[in-house]
């Protein structure tokens, strides 16, 4: 079976925000049939590696099959949190689109 690399944004959308110095990012399958791909490709370790240099703490992962979504908590990510942080994106609002840059591996059949 032929497999290929696609960008996560092709099959998912997302929203992110702040929880203290942690950012949360919820990733949602655009089509619920593709949710198994998210479950397989978006392990906590994989997400931690993706955010190397941004997320300085651990990554927690929570599944929401009812929404075809996975929620991640990225600890120690916002430069001290909303009010202290000197970051342009102190509230982690753009972590959502940042995770969608990830390249993932899919089989052609999975996208059919």
């Amino acid at each position, binding site marked *: 079976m032929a497999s290929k690399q696609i960008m996560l944004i092709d099959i998912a959308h997302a929203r992110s925000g702040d929880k203290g110095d942690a950012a949360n990012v919820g990733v949602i399958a655009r089509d619920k049939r593709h949710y198994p791909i998210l479950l397989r490709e978006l392990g906590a370790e994989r997400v931690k590696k993706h955010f190397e240099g941004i997320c300085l703490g651990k990554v927690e992962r929570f599944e929401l099959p*009812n929404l075809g979504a996975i929620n991640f908590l990225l600890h120690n990510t916002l430069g001290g949190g*909303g009010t202290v942080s000197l970051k342009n994106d102190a509230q982690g609002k753009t972590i959502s689109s940042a995770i969608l840059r990830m390249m993932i591996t899919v089989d052609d059949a999975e996208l059919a």
Partner: protein
Amino acid sequence: MKDFIRIASGQGFWGDLIDAPYNQVTQGPIDYLVMDFLAEVTMSILQKQKRKNPALGYAKDLIAQFERILPHIAGKGIKVITNGGGVNPIACKDAILATARKMGITGITVGVVLGDDILDSLDDLTSRGAALANMENGAELSGVRNRLQSANVYFGAAPIVEALRQGADIVITGRTTDTGLTLAPMIYEFGWSFDDWDKMAAGTVAGHILECGAQSSGGNFLGDWRSVPDLAHVGFPIAEAYPNGEFVITKHEGTGGLVSVATVSEQLLYEIGDPKTYITPDCIADFTSIQLEQLSENRVRVFGIKGRPETDSFKVSMSYLDGYSAIGTLTYAWPDAYEKARAADGILRTRLSDLKLEFDEIRTEYVGLNSCHGPLAPIPTDINEVVLRIGVRSQTFDAVERFGRELAPLILTGPPSVTGFAAGRPKPSEVVAYWPALLAKTFVTPRIEVEGV
């Protein structure tokens, strides 16, 4: 009992669209208008205003907004619930009543929820055994005790329900959870029991969907933002709530925006942690139980929600002073814009280092290149321009002030083709840090006052 009630979101944060509350009460039928004003740092700003003037300390925008909506809510029997009372709900109530009198409007009763502000009773609470340690890192309160600016308990829906039962048409609270504002009218109208956990969770989820205003009705929608029609006239979300705990998220006919399973899903995932354990003062809601169904255009049914009993603690939100910060920017143009901006950053850092100033942090970002996505953002080879953005944080005011004086000279003493300094020197501002804690519910009791015109 009513067959259903329409609860409309009128404000997603302090600074949201000023006309949203007016539009919600005039562009279609609603029963309740709920407005969330309070972010974590807002309380410290309001405490500062109250120290300067004891008649302030609430969201002043509210009064102008009430001036516009009072004639409509009085005529239509719409009730308004808001946490915009900040650290002075009584003064907020007085200002609303004064506005009503000035406009010749009668038959309006305003209820206030009091008791959330524990700043003045902290010593008493700690002497009675409340630790109020930082719930994120376990640090002891004594380390910041003399720098505290505000301290507020998050109340839930219960005191608002009590105010409604005492006849309030308008309920003004201090630090109430965003979700409690929406849950309260459901409990009041449908006679739900406070230990009917699935219903408490359902109203809480409705509150989470409404609490950020248009962020659930097409705003900030990453799914497909181009598909959202007429954001200029975006309709804020409305929950059409039923006695069995189900509700439909919609918006007024003829408004812009979009209510779909995708827009509601994004909002459900906003600022949550463990989705099985969404804790409020009212219950623990299980976000993995939420079912969504698109009924028709701009109508999404939300059902199946499960809840568990409340915990025995209130969350407490405190703020304390933690030094000073300033942020400044300069814009560098082609050619070699990025290289020049980096060189300028190096020059500035050398000068700050030569001055032996002490900073907790100096952060440099290049807006246009990587300030949002950091190392994930590929840097193009030949960019047209870039904004150098430098922020500093220090316990010392003078260090931050001196940083502000060192930035502008880069224009005449650094790399060329630089501009963008019309706003002047960056001024030091106080850093207000956040101290979350837990407090046993037995320590505090909400109080209600009602007054009418």
